[in-house]
């Protein structure tokens, strides 16, 4: 870590200033567009300031897992392509991409957002698989929250393709949406020194002590969490971070289409 940069970030946070002039608990401008990719069955383009992420849903059919013969499946994958940031390199997904995909996946899966039982086509033989790919166009901080909102928006936007026996006809989409039960929203709070901030830019992410991603439902129930960063958190920290997450989730929820 660059100590000079960290001191600089903290010095300004002590005066309630961030690099881009925002307040500590202020998000950048958010925009959500859905149905942006014609080759996907569902898609969304989400921007938080200069960070731009596309999420696309593709359907597949296949055999269910033996331990849940009546349930469909979901896979969330993130491709941190080198086009979107000088910090990303070509090659198979590294740990950053894997953590991102798994944290987004967990928020949706563990909230019970999708009723996987309704994705069963033939008990024990054929079920739907929902594959959601996250691709940043420009990665400029806070991929966790941007990607979570993009994936939720893309899933809500998706329509099932028609099924011809056991084969999918991707040219024909039905009017049926993915059966949704809940709508989790993820908010990541960063701890830098004694400060708690949301929606970090890369300069802030590079000097963080710890972060906590919290996915919550409309009724404020927590459904998934991930603590990251090299330093530990006190119970008091966690309480404050969760409170910020719940408060900010209410703002972000308005953008979910």
């Amino acid at each position, binding site marked *: 870590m660059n100590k000079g940069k960290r001191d600089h970030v903290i010095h300004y946070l002590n005066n309630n200033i961030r690099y881009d002039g925002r307040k500590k608990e202020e998000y950048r401008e958010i925009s959500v567009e859905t149905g942006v*990719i*014609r*080759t*996907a069955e569902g*898609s969304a383009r989400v921007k938080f300031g*200069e960070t731009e992420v*596309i999420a*696309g*849903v*593709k359907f*597949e059919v296949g055999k269910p897992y033996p331990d849940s013969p009546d349930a469909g499946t979901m896979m969330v*994958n993130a*491709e941190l*392509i*080198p*086009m*979107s*940031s*000088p910090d990303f390199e*070509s090659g*198979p*997904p590294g740990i950053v991409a894997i953590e991102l995909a798994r944290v987004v996946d967990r928020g949706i899966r563990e909230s019970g957002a999708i009723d996987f039982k309704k994705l069963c086509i033939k008990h024990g033989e054929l079920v739907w698989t929902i*594959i959601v*790919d996250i*691709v940043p*166009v*420009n*990665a*400029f901080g806070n991929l966790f929250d941007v990607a979570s909102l993009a994936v939720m928006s893309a899933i809500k936007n998706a329509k099932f393709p028609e099924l011809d026996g056991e084969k999918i006809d*991707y*040219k024909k989409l039905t009017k049926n949406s993915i059966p949704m039960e809940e709508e989790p929203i993820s908010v990541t709070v960063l701890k830098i020194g004694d400060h708690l901030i949301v929606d970090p830019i890369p300069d802030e992410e590079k000097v963080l002590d710890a972060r906590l991603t919290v996915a919550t439902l409309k009724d404020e129930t927590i459904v998934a969490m991930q603590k990251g960063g090299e330093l530990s958190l006190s119970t008091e920290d966690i309480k404050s971070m969760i409170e910020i997450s719940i408060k900010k989730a209410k703002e972000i929820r308005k953008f979910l289409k």
Partner: protein
Amino acid sequence: MAYKKRLDGRKFDELRPITAEVGVIPNAIGSAYFKIGKTGAYAAVYGPRDLYPRFLKNPKRGVLRCNYNMMPFSGAGDRVRPGTSRRSKEISLVTNQALLPVVNLDDFPNSVVDVFVELNETDAGSRCAGICAASMALADAGIEMKDLVGAISIGIVDGQVVLDLDYQEEAYKDGHVADVPMAYIPSMDKISLLQCDGRIKKDDLLKGLEMGKKAAKQLIEIQKKALKAKFEVPK
């Protein structure tokens, strides 16, 4: 038989609708988005920057390194499996060679200029869309260039020479189809990409190349307009 009217109603020498924009990826030194019909390509340029692994370095001039990739949801049918494929490696190679004649990297020995081409949705003609996006992105990055590059496919659908085939034409069942992606550099009057997939007679090919050259000039005008638009002062 015979292909009298195009499936989407275009004239035989008519391009699909095009939109072009530069500066779409703020992290990159130069960037562009080029959309033709339902095929969309991003391109981002990073560099000149240090090149690793070291044995790839050229002490005489900088290295141009193009990388073509389809986003997993960009295919019309099944999901495209992430990661490189034989197809994407070959397209990366021909993209590189299509652009190499116009860029001058003599001032950047031991460095690399990376060009990342990413398709977000495709409906045929993706390598050509990628080359057009890359041409704009390189110019946006301020890389010294002799000209822009216009890339387009020409071909045969059931005996008829056509420009800019879309997917339903490439998949035309009632007659032979040839797909000939090409890239043209007007100021040098040179062709820097030429591939052919399917049956075509020499005379038809030559006719098609003239059609493609004319279209490439149109494409370059569109690229120039997009590049200029970035620096226009809003009224």
